[in-house]
């Protein structure tokens, strides 16, 4: 596939636009009091409103609006002066009212952009708009029946539409990861693809290299993982290139990506396009968006991934380490806390990237889950630096501390692990060992320096491994030469 894509890009520009749907985290659904929460139990979080019973009315969830506005601002979008919703009319059982409330006339954000860090530099992705709407139910179709789970129906869903400015699967996936990080940094979504909380429609067309005119666009709906986005883009680019090379014409259509077969299949052509008959929802009173509210929300947006990466590189870290550290807000915050605790940037980065993240991955934990707070790690690192414990000891203790939810410094005391760095104390033990190991001492004096390791080892044994090995070595040599 890699080579096929490489060949295509010699002849064609691949032009991609994405529509990303992300479920926002709120207590209740977008227009009703039903719980908005992922659960595997079907139809547990439902109410008369999300089932569209006669006489029910929507009420705007202000928290969902606030979070959508935050996303819009984080994506550098312009925000409207009021929040209104439109009805998108179409018949399908996954939308019980057979119209979906969405924002066609006044999206919560328009004309924005998102900066994406790529291997070979930064890329600016245009955001056409981002709008708040209600989610549809999940449906499973079987041979002669279908099952519907309305848990998701009516949940707050933010749809973000890019401009057609993405030119490769790499860029598409990098954008999706960045977008996800923005949502997570802002704390407005869980955005877990496995829970169907972030899904994506991909629009793709090919045009002769350098041409100004866009080719015929194909839409692929509801792709549920970033890996599948990559596969869908690549397989569809290959399909389109094959047709174009043979002099064929593409039809504007909607295709379904089959992740088992790794291919796309036609769903419907543009001729079958639905007229959604959009019109303003009359049951909702417009929610005013004041300048004060906007600046309040803006103030709540933390420094995002892109800016943090830039900052870390400025601090002297490698691009690779900066990206790893800024991937998750929790990790980035933890890292920055350690730095402000007095640990130098490179040491702090090393501890997080090389040690901490490895343990978290191994234990299957998130940084927010662990009880080893940044202050504890700062203390542990300073113990290593002052020679109170060895680096290896500290690493071992950290792992145990994370696993057992304990303070690593207290753990060191408890386990009697702190290193003996007292000259007098070590010297006494060394003398004891030298008295016992007369033969070895003689061997050393005879020029066999290898025996030194044995003697140091004996001291370590006596101290239960706590003697500072460097100091021990020096003292052993001193004592033999003296003696």
């Amino acid at each position, binding site marked *: 596939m890699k080579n096929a894509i490489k060949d295509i890009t010699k002849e064609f520009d691949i032009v991609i636009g994405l529509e990303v749907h992300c479920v926002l985290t709120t207590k209740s659904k977008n227009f009703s009091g039903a719980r908005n929460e992922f659960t595997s139990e079907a139809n547990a979080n439902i109410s008369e409103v999300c*089932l569209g019973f*006669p*006489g029910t*009315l929507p009420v705007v969830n202000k928290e969902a609006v606030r979070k959508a506005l935050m996303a819009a601002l984080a994506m550098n979008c312009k925000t409207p002066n009021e929040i209104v919703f439109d009805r998108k009319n179409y018949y399908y*059982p996954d939308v019980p009212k057979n119209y979906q409330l969405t924002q066609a006339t006044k999206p919560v954000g328009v004309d924005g952009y998102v900066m994406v860090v790529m291997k070979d530099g930064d890329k600016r992705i245009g955001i056409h708009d981002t709008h708040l709407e209600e989610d549809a139910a999940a449906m499973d179709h079987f041979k002669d029946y*279908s099952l519907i789970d309305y848990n998701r129906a009516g949940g707050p869903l933010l749809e973000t539409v890019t401009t057609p400015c993405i030119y490769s699967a790499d860029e598409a996936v990098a954008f999706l990861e960045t977008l996800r990080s923005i949502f997570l940094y802002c704390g407005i979504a869980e955005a877990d693809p496995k829970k169907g909380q972030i899904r994506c429609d991909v629009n793709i067309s090919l045009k002769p290299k350098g041409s100004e005119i866009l080719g015929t666009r194909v839409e692929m709906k509801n792709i549920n993982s970033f890996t599948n986005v990559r596969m869908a883009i690549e397989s569809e680019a290959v399909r389109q290139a094959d047709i174009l090379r043979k002099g064929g014409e593409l039809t504007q259509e909607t295709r379904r990506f089959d992740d088992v077969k790794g291919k796309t299949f036609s769903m419907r052509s543009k001729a079958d396009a639905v007229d959604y*008959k959009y*019109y303003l929802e009359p*049951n909702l009173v417009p929610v005013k968006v004041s300048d004060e509210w906007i600046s309040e929300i803006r103030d709540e947006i933390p420094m995002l991934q892109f800016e943090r990466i830039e900052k870390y590189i400025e601090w002297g870290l490698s691009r690779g380490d900066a990206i790893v550290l800024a991937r998750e807000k929790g990790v980035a915050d933890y890292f920055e806390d350690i730095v402000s605790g007095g640990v130098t940037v490179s040491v702090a980065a090393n501890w997080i990237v090389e040690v901490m993240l490895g343990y978290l991955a191994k234990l299957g934990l998130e940084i927010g889950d662990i009880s080893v707070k940044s202050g504890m790690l700062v203390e542990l690192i300073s113990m290593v630096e002052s020679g109170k414990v060895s680096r290896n000891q500290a690493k071992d203790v950290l792992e145990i501390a994370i696993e057992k939810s304990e303070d690593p410094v207290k753990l060191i005391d408890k386990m009697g692990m702190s290193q003996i760095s007292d000259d007098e104390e070590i010297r006494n033990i060394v003398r004891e060992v030298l008295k016992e190991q007369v033969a070895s001492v003689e061997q050393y004096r005879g020029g066999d320096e290898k025996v030194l390791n044995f003697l140091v080892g004996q001291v370590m044994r006596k101290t239960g491994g706590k003697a500072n090995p460097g100091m021990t070595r020096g003292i052993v040599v001193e004592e033999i030469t003296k003696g």
Partner: protein
Amino acid sequence: MGDYDFGKGLKKISEELISGEVTSEELVEVSLRRAKEFEKYGAFVTLLDDESDKKGLTASAEETSSTPPEAGKSVLTGIPYAMKDNVSTTGVLTTGSCNILRDYVPIFDATCYRKLSEAGAVMVGKTVLDELAMGGSGLTGYTGPVVNPWDETRQTGGSSAGSAVAVALGVVPYAIGTDTGDSIRNPAGNLGVVGYKPTYGMISRWGVFAFASSMDTVGVLARSVRDAAIVADTMRGRDELDMTSYDSGELVDGLDGDVKGKKLFVVKELAEELKEHSLDIYENYLETIEVARKAGMEVLEESVDRELLKCVCGVYFAISCAEATSNNSNLTGVIFGVREDGATPDEVMINTRTKGFSEFVKKRFVLGSYILQAENQEKLFKNAQRVRRLVVDRFNELFEKYDGWLAPNAMGIAPKIDEEVDRLSNSYLILSQYLAIANFGGFPSVTIPSGVVRNNPVGVNITAKAKDDAGALNIAVVMEKVIGFKALDEKLEEMSR
């Protein structure tokens, strides 16, 4: 209890309940007995008696109202009433008089019903409407036509047909209706009862089957303006489940009967048209103008652009059909309602809707759908909304100078059953839907009986600026007193003999 008179007024009935002269059980029994006695009028979808309880479709009256609070808790405590069957009542069949919903038993209460229940009002039945509240004949409910007690060859009007008939037959002292174009006021005028459509949003629409959401209101059919105000007072108020609801002031308090110096206007073009169309109705209308003057009010003639008035009917249909199409697209049989079989989800929905709706309703859906289509929306829907705004602006302008608009309630007496009223005709276009102007602007609008013409009651309508319900009702109370309409009382007396 054989001839208990519900026309004596809610306050009087309540006093009799408190003094123990009558009991709530006796009143409910009177209502149920009369409802059965008048079964042929087709007013009820469901009666909350022991029989309905046995069918398992409904709870009995006592159960649904739980334990009625002791008499006197509110004026409505212990007094029976009827509810239009497009208002959601937990555990009680609610059909919208639509075949698709003939087995639909809601799991939640409409706010207006909850408030009435909390006040101790006793619902005795659910009344027939024109299917899904669309239409003004009383003929299109799936249970069959509602019969006009004044003249069985004539329509009742609608869509709150069953509610109007239940009050006009003395089955209940009041009934709840809904009004999107004139659905309370139209049958009220035809049957000689009071019909009150409050300001949009004064009574929560939560639980009320949506017809045209931007115009739908809940209101009251009663024997007197004061009774209507008492009932509306019980139901009104801001409801967090309806974003368009608001808190109005107490209505009954405003009924002080002082209208000296108040100014009313009549629309010249409407009067001219009426004079040409039916002289006897016009004459009755002139009498009501004199009544207003006699009561100390000033009545002046104002002009409204004929072209604008001609648009009202078309605009009403465009907007209401468009909204109705979308509002009723939940009726597919997938989650609730009577589901027809099909091989795919699409087929299930198509078959359910094909079989479940009458041609009359389908026609409106097709019209609404056409109006909302991308290529027609600007010309038909958006323009209709613009004209609606122009009409509302003109009337708001008038309401700045006047306390109310005095209008004939209808262009004639109730039409004959076979008379087609759901077709736009160019002659008398101005007369066919002007009461909907109150729905365009959300204005409060009260219809009171103003006399009998050709053996049928006719009414006069008072409409005021939005949120001035108290003002409109106060004018109506005074006019009601001066008019002194007795024909319904006499008719009921005659029927009971």
